């Protein structure tokens, strides 16, 4: 496959493929955390469909060419969910999938947060929350200044919106009329210390973005057909002169019953039998 053409209509086969890849990303997340003996299950699970839809149905990428200048960009604001992204980048032949077998081992390139200097296909390093919408803004500005046709996608956590710099970027991107910038908020309603509304409330979220000059959309972040239709339409709307935000309503820990909406699974590790049970539940065999 060379460049994907987002203009293709969503079809049931593609949707099935994306859903299957989201499951694969979850299974791999469990496997990688098992190697590290600690990691972010729940944050990865809430955005698995979003990542899979972007990488298999929306973004213009070239297999084995992570530095293709006209590729669509992706910045992972909630970089702590990197273990869910790495397997998808391996799928694009940006690196050997076997490299992930050494996940987090001493000197390995793959850690809990993505490192652009060591991992092909990571468009920008992240980890410190609140920077990603700015770095994505820079990529969108660079694309416009050099008349390159790509779209920049930034995936933000809802807890990340507590950081003031996000709103500096929201102001700046709207001021610069960056229509080729799409922010996606993974609204799983939880940050590390518990429910967002109990930590520091962020609602009404769509109104806030709208007031900052953004085009706003809301979607079920686990509904692949809906994600695919919406994100494709935003990528194809090249005449837009406002950045767009998609608030994706998700379930933290989605896919494993006891992890869903249980903030304790933001960070954790499953011992052997529990892991086997979790994998079985994900595969639907339990």
């Amino acid at each position, binding site marked *: 496959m060379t460049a994907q053409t987002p203009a293709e209509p969503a079809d049931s086969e593609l949707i099935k493929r994306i859903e299957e890849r989201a499951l694969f990303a979850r299974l791999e997340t469990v496997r990688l955390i098992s190697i590290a003996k600690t990691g972010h299950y729940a944050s990865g699970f809430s955005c698995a469909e979003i990542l899979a839809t972007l990488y298999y149905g929306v973004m213009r990428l070239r297999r084995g060419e992570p530095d293709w*200048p006209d590729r669509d960009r992706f*910045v992972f604001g909630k970089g702590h969910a990197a273990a869910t992204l790495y397997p998808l980048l391996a799928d694009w032949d940006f690196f050997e999938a076997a490299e992930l077998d050494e996940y987090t081992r001493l000197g390995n390139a793959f850690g809990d947060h993505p490192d*652009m*200097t060591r991992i092909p296909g990571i*468009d*920008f*390093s992240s*980890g*410190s929350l609140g*920077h990603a919408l*700015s*770095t*994505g*803004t*820079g*990529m969108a*500005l*660079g*694309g416009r*200044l*050099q008349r*390159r046709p790509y779209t920049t996608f930034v995936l933000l956590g809802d807890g990340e919106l507590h950081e003031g*710099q996000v709103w*500096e*970027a929201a*102001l*700046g991107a709207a*001021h*610069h009329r960056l229509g080729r910038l799409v922010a996606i908020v993974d609204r799983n309603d939880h940050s590390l210390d518990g429910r967002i509304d109990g930590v520091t409330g962020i609602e009404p979220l769509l109104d806030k973005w709208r007031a900052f000059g953004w085009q706003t959309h809301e979607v079920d972040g686990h509904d692949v057909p809906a994600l695919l239709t919406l994100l494709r339409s935003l990528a194809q709307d090249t005449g837009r002169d406002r950045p767009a935000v998609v608030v994706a309503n998700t379930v933290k820990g989605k896919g494993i019953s006891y992890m869903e909406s249980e903030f304790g699974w933001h960070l954790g590790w499953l011992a052997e039998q529990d892991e086997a049970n979790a994998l079985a539940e994900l595969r639907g065999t339990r």
Partner: protein
Amino acid sequence: MSVAPGLQPESWHLLSLLEQAPGLQALGDTLADLADEGHPVVVGTADLKYSNGLVRFQDRHPDKYLQFGISEQHMVSTVAGLATTGLRPYVATFASFMALLACEQIRTDVAYTRQPVRLIGHHAGITLGFYGTSHHATEDLAITRSIAGLTVIAPADTAALAAALRASVDHPGPVYFRIGRGRDPDVYPAGTTLEIGKAIEHGTGSDLTLIATGSMVHPALEAAAALTADGYSVGVLDMHTVKPLDETAVLKAARGSRLLMTVEEHNVLGGLGGAVAELITEHGVPVRLHRHGIRDQYSLIGPPTHLYRHYRLDAAGVETEARDLLHAGTR
């Protein structure tokens, strides 16, 4: 730009202030020249284009100029992302807001990712005088020097700034420029060149070498001239690149002089004095070093010239400090 007719010639307003700051004119002009020459330069600031001279760049290259508003952290992260697309961003704001406010963005988004971003902290040190502690930057050398992979340059005057900007165009990795308010007396002729990482030696001194950076090079040279006239053997090193430090030049001075004195418009902790102390100690060179600068305190407010006098950072003050050292060193 001129002040409204009818006012006295001495009057000025924000837009005409730049006429008093040749160094900041050179900032905007040199970057515009680099863009003219085809370098992929993009320039931005955080609501300070009249204060730092970048309006002169905007006038010539409006399509390559970015206004960020008062959002320094966002500005630094944004140009880190911008640099990944092949452009060479130069962004400027007050040194206190660049190196202190946006410190983590510099570390995490610019330096750790090795992006060719050029950060310009202007009005560094105590140049903002009575504007107060929030606007003073006497920690920026210590902060930027400790960030891995970041080159730190403090040019002595207008010509050196232009030379440093030119030298930086193809320099690998990120650079922090530390400059003053653009009114430093000339040390070098227009068109001078400068090599990043190589100190400029102004004579050698068996009694004393003054190692100065940025705005302190000119007073150090004047002090050295006065001491030389009195029969002392005094040399001056213009340490325009604070990191990577020119170790060869420092060690040569340390071995060739009885005394060393660093001179910086910065806290003596962690800046040039700290860098020189670390080096000569590691090499076991038996020389006395005196670090001259702000001694671990918040500076007073006042007109800059008065502050320089108070902290012995003008030519007379550097000379006095050096005489004290020479006398103490002979006891």
